Structures are given as structure tokens and as C-alpha cells.
């Protein structure tokens, strides 16, 4: 039987606000346990939540960026359950009236464009952490994270492969960091993915029973977990088994998913509107001021890069992988007016070198202005591609500006044809055998001669010029 995979993702993004969603405590990561937990965060008797408007603004930004509906009146609910890292015994979330509904995200998989629709996005507070190690057999509770604002972004079950799920997660990651509502740090848990996975026979209209893989904190784990889960579900079904609705965890060490709780163990969260918080009202002026402050979005920038710089749709997609990369590219391209050439350099030499050094674009030792200047020197014929790489190395090492490096290292392409002719004559004189072969029609020998000339010029000859001069001399 042929099977089809159905995937929907729920992504918890920690919002990049200075303070928590319902208290004034700092949200900074990594402080000593409970040093960022106020009376409100530890749920002392009598304390009350006060909504951080900054978190609401993040949700507005997100809704505008994905073309979603903003619920002008949205409501916070209480989700009740007991756990030591949940101080109030309930999480403040949004169930019936979330702030964001609908919207869509464009993804690119194997060169194919797809639109993934979103169901909703709602504001809620993060829980604290239970620390099971190093407490002499008892569990420690760190409430620093309790109350950190989250936007939970829920997609429709519209992805059909792990590759699509990863592409969607990446596109979402790019977007939330692009508009500045999330720092995107997956190691620190700022962007956590839950994947709802099911399979069904191709052609069947109803969905299969889904299992939810919780808390995937890297794109690689997302891919591995879904691939494993899909294989497991298909094998189970083909062996005559049934899939039970369940929540599972992915173990990166074994590459397998394992059951956390079954449907029978599912909580009744007894949701109801939080009487401590008034419904959130979004007025048009607020929404418009957020819209006005929104940066140009990746999709719009991709189109503009294609139009302004003549780069391909695929390259435009890569160049807008992050806002920093896109801004770097655009600055370099504007500096020299050579978008396509800059695109090649950014995605080629620059990306490779950054990757090797484990640096991101914002840490690049070569500035966008310098890269623009470098490309300009290629364009005006001062540098060959090979020489340009040497100049790039100089820039990377901090040896100065482009022209200074060319000068200091003598990397200027030979422009004096007299000097070049002299080299060519010497090469011809030393390679009489090759000359005869060429004259008798052996084209291969011609290329070897070009190589010889380039070598003799220490790479500074202009290969096109060498080609022309050699041809003329051999005629």
C-alpha cells in the first residue's frame, strides 16, 4: 500500500520582550535559578497578572507579516493542571478567542513553491523548569522562565513530508527573527516545535490517527523525528496494528520516538476565561502604527531582488534566509551595482568561509562595503576571479581595504599588453612542440599554453586577453 504523510506543526516562539508577559521580571536567559522570579511569577497568594503590551505588539507584528486576521477582541483563558514548575496551577493562555487567526507562509521545497496555511497563533506564558540533577535526590524548581511570553503558532495539517515540515519551520524561524519578535535561539528554547504526525493510504480523505512529537529544538531533530515516526506508523499499520492517539518524545541518541502519555492520560484542562484579565482590545491606530514600523518582509524583498538585481527566484530565496544576510547582500550590491556577481560571492566564497569559521553573517570580518568594493574591482577588470579570492583572503584577515591589498600584494591584473606579449613570446619559444601541434589542429595544446602563460604571469594576466593575443600570434 502507498502511504501519505500528514504533518501539522505547533511552534512555541519565545517573544523578545524585556520583561515577562504578566509581570515586570526580566526575561534574560541564563540567570541563577529564581533570581528572575517575582511575587507574581512564583504565584504568591494575592498577586495578579498585568498584561505586557509588548507581547501583544509582537503578536500584531506576526499577524501583519503573515496576512492573518487580528481578533480585535481576544481573551485570555486559564488552562488548569498541576505541575511543580507551573506555580499558579494554571497556565494563562488563549483558547476560544486567540489574538491571531489564519494567515499563510510560502515555502520552497525542491524548487517547488508551496503555501502552508496557519490555523491560529495565541499568546501564553511559559512554565518554569524542573531541575532533576544535583539536588540530593529532590527536584529543584527554577521559575526564571515562568511567565516568559510565548506565541504559539499552529499550522494547518498541510505538510506532506519531513522536508516540507522543515522548510515550513525554517521559513517561520526566518520570519519571526526577521520581524524581531523572537531571537530564534533554538538551543536556549526560544523556538520549540511540536509535530503532529499521521499517515493515511494515498487517496483516503480522512486523516489517520495522529501522534504528537513534543519539544523538538533543532531542524535536524525535527526531520529525524518525523522520518522515524512515519516509518514506525506505517510499519505498525502494515503489521495489522493500530495507531493510538498519543504524545511522544524524540530521543536524539537513539533516533526514536517514545510514548510520553496516551490519550487516556490526557488532562482535562478545564479552560475558562481568566477573570483577572480583561479582554484585550486592539484599536486600529495601534495596529496601523505597528504596520508602519514593520520592516520589508522576506517575500517582498525576494521579488525586489529579482527585479532590481536580476537574481534568480532561488537565489533570492537563499539571500533572504535571514534579515541580516539580506541586508548584507543589498548593501554590497548597491555599493557596486553588480547584484548577480555579489549574489555569487555571498552564497559562494563568503558563506563557505563563514561556515568554516562557524560565524554568522553579522560576525563577518568582511563588511558588505568591502565585498562591494571587491566585486567592483572584478567588474572593472582590475582583478580576475582568482586574484579576487586572494584579495578576499586579505580582507578576511583584516589586511586593509580592497585597493590597498591589491597594491600591497601586487595582485593587479596585467593590463600592459607589451609586458604580456613578452611573456607570451617567451612561452611560445619554450614550447615549440606545442606550437606545432596547435598548428596541426590539436586544440588541447592551446589550453595548455594559456595555462603556461597564466603561470608565467603569476596569475596576473587577464585570461581573455591571453586568449586573444595567443590566437593572434599563432595565426
Amino acid at each position: 500500500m502507498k502511504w501519505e504523510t500528514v504533518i501539522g506543526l505547533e511552534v512555541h516562539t519565545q517573544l523578545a520582550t524585556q520583561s515577562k508577559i504578566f509581570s515586570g521580571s526580566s526575561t534574560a536567559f541564563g540567570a541563577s535559578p529564581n533570581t528572575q522570579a517575582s511575587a507574581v511569577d512564583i504565584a504568591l497568594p494575592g498577586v495578579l497578572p498585568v498584561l505586557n503590551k509588548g507581547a501583544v505588539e509582537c503578536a500584531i507584528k506576526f499577524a501583519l507579516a503573515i496576512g492573518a486576521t487580528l481578533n480585535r477582541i481576544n481573551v485570555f483563558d486559564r488552562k488548569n493542571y498541576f505541575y511543580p514548575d507551573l506555580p499558579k496551577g494554571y497556565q494563562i493562555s488563549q483558547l476560544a478567542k486567540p489574538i491571531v487567526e489564519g494567515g499563510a507562509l510560502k515555502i520552497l521545497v525542491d524548487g517547488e513553491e508551496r503555501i502552508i496555511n496557519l490555523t491560529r497563533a495565541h499568546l501564553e506564558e511559559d512554565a518554569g523548569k524542573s531541575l532533576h540533577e544535583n539536588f540530593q535526590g529532590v527536584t529543584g524548581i527554577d521559575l526564571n522562565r515562568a511567565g516568559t511570553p510565548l506565541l504559539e503558532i499552529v499550522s494547518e495539517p498541510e505538510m506532506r513530508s519531513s522536508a516540507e515540515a522543515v522548510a515550513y519551520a525554517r521559513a517561520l524561524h526566518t520570519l519571526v527573527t526577521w520581524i524581531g519578535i523572537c531571537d530564534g535561539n533554538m538551543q536556549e528554547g526560544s523556538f520549540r516545535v511540536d509535530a503532529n504526525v499521521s499517515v493515511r493510504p494515498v487517496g483516503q480523505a480522512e486523516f489517520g490517527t495522529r501522534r504528537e512529537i513534543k519539544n523538538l529544538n533543532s531542524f535536524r531533530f525535527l526531520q529525524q523525528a518525523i522520518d522515524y515516526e512515519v516509518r514506525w506508523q506505517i510499519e505498525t499499520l502494515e503489521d495489522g496494528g493500530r495507531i493510538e492517539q498519543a504524545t511522544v518524545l524524540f530521543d536524539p541518541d537513539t533516533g526514536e520516538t517514545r510514548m510520553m502519555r496516551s490519550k487516556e492520560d490526557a488532562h482535562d484542562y478545564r479552560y475558562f476565561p481568566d477573570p483577572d484579565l480583561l479582554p484585550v482590545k486592539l484599536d486600529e491606530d495601534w495596529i496601523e502604527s505597528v504596520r508602519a514600523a514593520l520592516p520589508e518582509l522576506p517575500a517582498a524583498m525576494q521579488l525586489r531582488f529579482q527585479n532590481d538585481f536580476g537574481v534568480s527566484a532561488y537565489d533570492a530565496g537563499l539571500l533572504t534566509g535571514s534579515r541580516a544576510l539580506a541586508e548584507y547582500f543589498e548593501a554590497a550590491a548597491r555599493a557596486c551595482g553588480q547584484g548577480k556577481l555579489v549574489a555569487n560571492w555571498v552564497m559562494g566564497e563568503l558563506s563557505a568561509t563563514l561556515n568554516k569559521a562557524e560565524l554568522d553573517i553579522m560576525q563577518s570580518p568582511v563588511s558588505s562595503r568591502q565585498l562591494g568594493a571587491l566585486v567592483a574591482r572584478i567588474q572593472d577588470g582590475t582583478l580576475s576571479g582568482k586574484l579576487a579570492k586572494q584579495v578576499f583572503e586579505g580582507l578576511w584577515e583584516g589586511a586593509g581595504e580592497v585597493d590597498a591589498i591589491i597594491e600591497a600584494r601586487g595582485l593587479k591584473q596585467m593590463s600592459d599588453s607589451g609586458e604580456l606579449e613578452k611573456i607570451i613570446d617567451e612561452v611560445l619559444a619554450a614550447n615549440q612542440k606545442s606550437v606545432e601541434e596547435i598548428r596541426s589542429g590539436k586544440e588541447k595544446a592551446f589550453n595548455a599554453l594559456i595555462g603556461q602563460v597564466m603561470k608565467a604571469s603569476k596569475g596576473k594576466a587577464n585570461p581573455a586577453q591571453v586568449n586573444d593575443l595567443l590566437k593572434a600570434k599563432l595565426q
Partner: protein
Amino acid sequence: MSDASLSALAAQLAAKQVSSRELTQQYLDRITALNPVLNAFITVDADKTLTEAAAADALIAKGKAGPLTGVPIAHKDIFCTDGWLTTCGSKMLHNFIAPYDAHVIQRFKAAGMPSLGKTNMDEFAMGSSNETSYFGAVKNPWNTAYVPGGSSGGAAACVAARMAPAATGTDTGGSIRQPAALCGITGLKPTYGLVSRFGMIAFASSLDQAGPMAPSAEDCALLLNVMTGFDPNDSTSLEREKEDYARDLDKPLTGLRVGLPREFFAEGLNNEVATAVEAAVTELKKLGATTVEISLANSKLAIPVYYVLAPAEASSNLSRFDGVRYGYRAPEYANLDDMYCKTRAQGFGAEVKRRILIGAYVLSHGYYDAYYLQAQKIRRLIANDFTEAFKTCDVILGPTAPGTAFKLGEKSDNPVEMYLNDLYTIPANLAGLPGMSLPCGFDSQGLPIGLQLVGNYFSEAKMLNVAHQYQCVTDWHARAPEGLK
């Protein structure tokens, strides 16, 4: 003991006829003498109290005194009070020393009013007799075989017994008004949102409201001036211009339209109470008021609605008492779930558990629509009845409770009968309206009878005006129980 009003006490302090320390010491002595009998206070700390009184004296000496600086007040043990044991009448918090002040406490501190201590109450404010307190029942000062009402029973009893010139209370379904009625004092529940709930341990967040309890309406007006005001720490706190609640006290009642809800004078009302309330209506008419019959048809549903909504909110509000971070934790347990179960089984009393169970039930999957949602709809209908009624009257008048104080233990085995005590007070909470109770007589056993006024939103000044004018021509509020030592 002094029967002086708050304004008279303040005048004596301002004229330096008495210092705050002296005045406060007199009340502390009275508490020492009477608390073993009445059990009105859970915590008394004379050193802390007198330190605050000394600070008040310093303010008075510097000429920086406010209207009530130096006058001491007792606080219900539901308000978190920095450095004080704050128990909410529960074993669950029997060891909880609050590390911060509730907004209400902050305001009284800022006004220079020393705290006399923390008053006894029904556990987590759940009760109408003060018998659910972990710290034992409070006795009614008019007859110690009787309950003082609840949940602010300690507050009402201490004011009635003149152990404090005034007290704070909270009212979720009548917890200020009913004990005020049963103890023969004046108490006011303000419009929802007028007094910040920050630091007040939550029972039912959409209904809870703090208010003043004192012998007279004039006293309550002065206390309300201290308590009210916007608080950014409470999202349901209302941002309104500050008003003087005493400004209309002396206005004549000529032309006042008093609404008499026929449902409040029907079956279930004790005859002696009905007679006293009707006599009060006659007094008001003499003062120039007219009466108009009104109907609050849906208020008969108030008790069932309340006992869905209040427990629903309470079941969630009380989840934080889990033994993890503060308060009581069971001494022995096998694992996490066992720790939760034993802690909550041992830490909460029967009435609290009953309401948590009811609340969890009505919010459960499959029951939410039938109970919680339906109750919310009826709540709206009850509020609409009041809106209609206030088109034809300025203030609504009726009994505060269906009867006078009952004997200790008389109703404690019958929760439904106990719940009926809040029949007339609950509708105002559901509608968010202000309500007050004031003394209007005594029954044949010498137990006080309470008269209730319910006003339109933000009409506290009007209600206080009506109550004050009534108190100018009657002396029920001025009577104190005799025979107490």
C-alpha cells in the same frame, strides 16, 4: 470603651488630646480582654502595631497628618501584610508570613492608620458563619452562643465589640454585608473594580471586592476615601477620578426614590426582620423619600448561579496552594501526586474542598456549557434586572439577610441552608453593584437586624448619604453589645 466615630477620634488626635499610641493601646487592651471570648483576631502583634502608632504620632507632630492618621484599624486575614502571618483562615497558610503588602494595606499604611492585627474569617472566605475557619469560630458579641456571620466575621465582631474602631472586609457573595447585619454594624461592598484586589487572596476573582466595616455610614465613607483608587497592579481596577464619598452625607433625602424588590420581601424572610426593614422604610419616607415597587425576577437564580461561578473560579484560584513553594505541605508522601493529594487533603477544610470539587466539576469537559456558560448567561440577566430597576429608582432597599444570627453549629451540617443566608446579598456581587448593610433594629432575642441598600454603579456617595441620613434619626448603629468585659 470609646464609642467615638472615626472623625471624632481623628479630631482628638489632631487636637493632641490623645496620642495614637495611647488610643491604639486602649484598643489592644480591649482585644487582649475580649479575644479569648470572641476569637475575632487570628494574629495580634502589639509591638508592630505600636511601632506604627508611634510613626503616626510623628506624622501628627510634624503636621503631616491626613484625615484619619493615628486611628487604628483591623485587617481581615485575607490581605497580605508584609511581615505578618497571613492565613486566610486556613491550615494551608497557617505558617505563611506575607513578604508584601496588599494594595489596601498599602493605602491604610500611607494614611497613617496603625494595624491592630489580622481578623478571623471563614477559610478562604468560604462561609456565612465564620465556622469554617481553621482557627476556630468567631462568637457574636451580642450573644456568644451565636455566629457573627461570615466570611468577614472577625472584622464584624471586633468592630461590634469595639475592639477596633473600624475594620477591612471582603465581599464575594455578602461577606461584608451579612456579618455586618448579624453583628449590628455598617459595612459597604463597593462597585466591582473600585478597590484594588492586589494582595487580597483570591476566592472568586470576578466577584471579590474589599470594603470598609465600621459602626456608621459616615465612618465607612471616610474609610472608602482611603481604600479606593486605581491600581496598575490589578487589571480589573477602574481608572476613575478620585471622589470624596463623604461629600453628600448631609444632603436631604427629599425626592429620593427607594426601590423595593418584591422578591426580597417574599417567602423565606423572617417576620421580625421584615418588620424592622419596613419600619426603616417608614423612617426614610419621613425624611422625604418615596417608594417604588420593583422586580428583580432573575435574582431567585442568584444562589445556583453563584454556586457555579464562585466555585469554578475558586477551584482554579486555589490551585496554587500545592505545597511546593510556601504554606502547608504534608509531612509524608510517596511521590509528587501523593504530595499534592495529601497536602490538599490535609491543608483544606471541608467547605473549601466541597467548593473546589463543585468548581472543577462545572468546568469539566462536557459540563462547561451546561453549567459554567449557562450560569454566565443568567448572571447577565440578573445584572439586566438591576439596570431596568434603576430606571425607576435611585437606590434599592431590602433585608441584608433572611434572618438574624443563628446558633453556632445550627447550620454547619447543612451547606444548602447555610448558602441561603446570602440570598439577598449575592445578586449585587453578580451584577458588580455596590451594596451596604446598616443596622435597623433588633429581634426579640436582642440580636441585630441588617438593612441592605444596593445602588447603581459608582453610586456609593448616594448610598452613604441615604444611610447617614437614616442614622441621623436612628441610633441602632450606635448601640454596642453590653455585658462584654
